[in-house]
C-alpha cells in the first residue's frame, strides 16, 4: 500500500479479530442502524485523549487476544482497557494508560489480557479507516467492518495535537480498578419488573458470564427472576444496557451493538456508567448486580466525565 503524504504506517504482525472502532453511529436509528462502536467507551476515549486525539477518533479494539505491530515510522500510541503486558522489541516493558513512543522499526507486543477483556490502542493522529454513516465501527447487518489483519498496514494521520504528558492519567486509577474489577454492577429497576416473580434474585447472587456473549449482548448464567407470563410483547426500541430475561430464563445485557428493537421485557437497565465494566467482563467471570437509584447513577457518570474532562485539560 503506498504511503499517503502526511501519514504514518504501522505493519500489523499479529492480530486475531481486532477491529478499527470509534464511538459509533448516532442519528440513524430510524433507518434501523444501531449505535455500535467501542464496547468500552471510557477506555476508548481515554486512549484517544492520551494520544492527543479527539475522544471519538478511530482506534484499534482488541478482544482477548495478542496484538503485535511494527512501526514503519516513529509513532506515539496509548494502550488502555484490559490489563495486558506491553513489551517493546521483546525486552522493554511499557505501562498502559500512558502515551508511548514506538520508534521506527521496532515492534510493540500487547499480550492477551490478564484482567478485563478488551484492549484499546490509540495512535497519535488516529487510524484512518473506511467510514459508513459517520462511523468506522462495524455494521454487521450491512457487512461493514474495518478489520485489522495480520500482514496489513494501518495508516495513521498527522497528529493535530501532541500526546499528553506522562502521568496525566494517574487520577484515573480508581476508575480503572472499578472498570476491571467492578464487584457489583449498578442497575436501575424498571416498572416492567412487575411482570417478574423473585426479582430479588437479580441482586442476591452472582451471575457468570456465558461464552456465547458478543458485542450485541452479554449473556449470563445464574438464578434469574421468573417471568410471570409469556405474553407476546410488541417490538419496541430498547436501551443500551437493557437487562433482558427471555422466557427461557437466561439473563442478557444488551451492549452497544444491540439490535434496534426487541420484544422481551426489560426489568432493569444497567447504569450508563457501568456498561463499560460489563463489556470488560471475561467469559466465566462472576459479577453481582446492585440496585441503585437515578441519583447514584448520575453521580457515577459525573465522576467519570469529570475524570475524562480533567484528562482533556492536561
Amino acid at each position, binding site marked *: 500500500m503506498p504511503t499517503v503524504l502526511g501519514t504514518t504506517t504501522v505493519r500489523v504482525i499479529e492480530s486475531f479479530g481486532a477491529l478499527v472502532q470509534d464511538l459509533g453511529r*448516532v442519528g440513524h436509528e430510524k433507518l434501523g442502524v444501531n449505535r455500535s462502536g467501542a464496547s468500552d467507551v471510557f477506555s476508548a476515549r481515554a486512549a484517544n485523549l492520551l494520544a492527543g486525539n479527539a475522544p471519538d477518533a478511530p482506534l484499534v479494539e482488541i478482544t482477548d487476544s495478542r496484538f503485535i505491530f511494527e512501526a514503519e515510522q516513529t509513532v506515539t500510541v496509548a494502550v488502555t482497557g484490559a490489563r495486558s503486558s506491553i513489551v517493546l522489541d521483546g525486552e522493554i516493558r511499557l505501562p498502559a494508560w500512558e502515551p508511548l513512543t514506538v520508534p521506527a522499526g521496532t515492534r510493540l507486543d500487547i499480550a492477551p489480557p490478564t484482567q478485563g477483556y478488551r484492549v484499546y490502542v490509540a495512535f497519535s493522529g488516529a487510524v484512518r479507516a473506511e467510514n459508513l454513516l459517520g462511523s468506522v465501527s462495524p455494521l*454487521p447487518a450491512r457487512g461493514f467492518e474495518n478489520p485489522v489483519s495480520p500482514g496489513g498496514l494501518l495508516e495513521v494521520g498527522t497528529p493535530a495535537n501532541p500526546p499528553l504528558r506522562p502521568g496525566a492519567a494517574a487520577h484515573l486509577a480508581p476508575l480503572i480498578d472499578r472498570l476491571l474489577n467492578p464487584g457489583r454492577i449498578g442497575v436501575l429497576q424498571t416498572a416492567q419488573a412487575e411482570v417478574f416473580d423473585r426479582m430479588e434474585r437479580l441482586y442476591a447472587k452472582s451471575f457468570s458470564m456465558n461464552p456465547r456473549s458478543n458485542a450485541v449482548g452479554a449473556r449470563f448464567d445464574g438464578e434469574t427472576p421468573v417471568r410471570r407470563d409469556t405474553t407476546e410483547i410488541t417490538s419496541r426500541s430498547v436501551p443500551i444496557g437493557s437487562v433482558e430475561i427471555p422466557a427461557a430464563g437466561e439473563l442478557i445485557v444488551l451492549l452497544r451493538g444491540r*439490535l434496534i428493537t426487541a420484544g422481551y421485557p426489560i426489568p432493569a437497565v444497567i447504569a450508563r456508567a457501568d456498561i463499560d465494566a460489563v463489556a470488560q467482563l471475561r467469559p466465566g467471570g462472576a459479577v453481582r448486580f446492585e440496585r441503585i437509584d*437515578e441519583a447514584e447513577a448520575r453521580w457515577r*457518570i459525573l465522576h467519570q466525565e469529570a475524570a475524562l474532562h480533567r484528562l482533556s485539560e492536561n
Partner: protein
Amino acid sequence: MTGLSEYNLEPLGDSYVLMTFTHASDELKWLHAHSMCRTLDDLASDAIVSTYAAYDTLLVEFDMLRIDAGGVCHILRALAGAYSTANEEWLAAAVVYRMPVRYGGDIEVVADELDLSVSAFIELQTSEPIRIRCRGVAGSLMMSNPSVVPAIGRLPSPIIREIHVGEFNVAGRQCSVGFGSGRATIGWRNVGRTPADLSSAAIAACGFSAGDQILVEPIHPNSWNDYLGRPMAVLERI
C-alpha cells in the same frame, strides 16, 4: 382532536424514557407514536440524543448530563397536550408496494402451532396490505400481520443464526422483511423470503417510510427466478 391523554411515561435506566401509547386502536397507537416522535425531533433539542418510534411506543434517549428523566417527561407531556391532527399530516406521503414472497422456512411448524393449514395461513397473511410500522435492524421493514392472523409464538430465547436478505419473518402479531445477511441474534420465526431487489440502491430508491404499505404476493417456488432482482413495484399512493 386536541391533546393526547392515552399514554404512559416510564423511565428506563438513567438515560431513556419510554412513552407507550394506550389507545384501544393499534392503528392510532402507532400513529400517535410516530407523530409525537416527529414533533419531538422538530424541537431539535441538544439534550435529546435519539428517538425511535415503533408500533405503540416512542423511546427517547437523553443526555443525562443535560437533562433528567423528569425533564424529558415534562417535555413529552407538553407536546402531547398540544397534539392535534395537524401532527399527522406526514402520513399523506405514504405509498403501497407489491412484494413477492416465496413462503417456506418454518411455515409448516408455525401453521401447525396455529392449527392452520399452510395454505390457510398464507391466505390470512396476504388478505390485505400491511403497513410498515418502523424500520428494524439493517433497515428491515417491521410490520403487523393482518388482524385475522393469530399471534405467533416468539422463540423462548433469541438464537444466533445465519440470516438471509429478504427473509420474511413473524413473531407475535408482527412480521418483517430483513435487508441484511450474516449471523444475527433473533427470536423471530422464518416463513418465507422475497426475491425482490433489496440492494442498498434499490432500498434507497424505494424510500420505505413508516406508514407505507406492502401488499404481499405469494409466488410459487418455481417462479423465484422470474422475480429475482426486480424492484418492488409501487402500486399506488394512498
